């Protein structure tokens, strides 16, 4: 179990650090708005394809359509309700550094 936890933490930290790498690219060379629009689309495309193709398909395979659908719907509803609890905009120019 401890081994699992360590592996999971290393993997997720490395994946998370890639976000910092993206930030570093901005520091080195600031991309223009067209590139930014393209990159945001790229991030969106990866996320949606991965979610359905891997996360949802595996979830359905190892359990049932019902459990997978419940997880999906509860996840989206939670984020939706978060929109009301804390009004915000991710990725926006308005987002202040905190």
């Amino acid at each position, binding site marked *: 179990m401890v081994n699992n936890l360590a592996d999971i933490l290393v993997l997720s930290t490395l994946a998370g650090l890639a*976000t910092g790498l*993206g930030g570093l690219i901005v520091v080195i060379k600031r991309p223009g708005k067209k590139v930014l629009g393209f990159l945001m689309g790229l991030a969106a495309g*990866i996320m949606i394809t991965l*979610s*359905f193709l891997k*996360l949802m398909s595996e979830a359905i395979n190892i359990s049932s359509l019902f459990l997978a659908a419940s997880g999906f719907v509860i996840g989206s509803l939670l984020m939706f309700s978060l929109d009301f609890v804390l009004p915000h905009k991710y990725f926006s120019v308005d987002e202040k550094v905190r």
Partner: protein
Amino acid sequence: MGISLHNFPEGIAVASGYSYLPRLGLVIAIAMAVHNIPEGIAIALPVHMGGASRFAAFRLALVSGLVEPLGALVATLFLENFRDLVPFGLAFAGGVMVFVTLDELIPVAHEHGHEHFTSLGVIMGCIVTFMLLGIL
């Protein structure tokens, strides 16, 4: 706060995947890493455009990324006690991420103008993921 929250479910996805099958966790983590590079740019660039210093912009992206292991830690400790909920965790993370993408990422990308570039990016992102999953 808003931005940081968004990497939390990515950690849940990695942890759920790994708990079911280590290889699945690895595949998800690699795809997340590829996704996180443009995401880091999307987080840092608007902040920098808004007048914050380069360092502040970089720091925001870095802190946002480090929320990912936090989500993974919480999910691992939870799934350790509720093994049956591993597929639920996968689907839950999927639901959160698809919602955030459609509700925030794409609309905000359109605010910058150049919608066609965003659309091209979406298609490219799909292709990248197909290739990635093909290789792994």
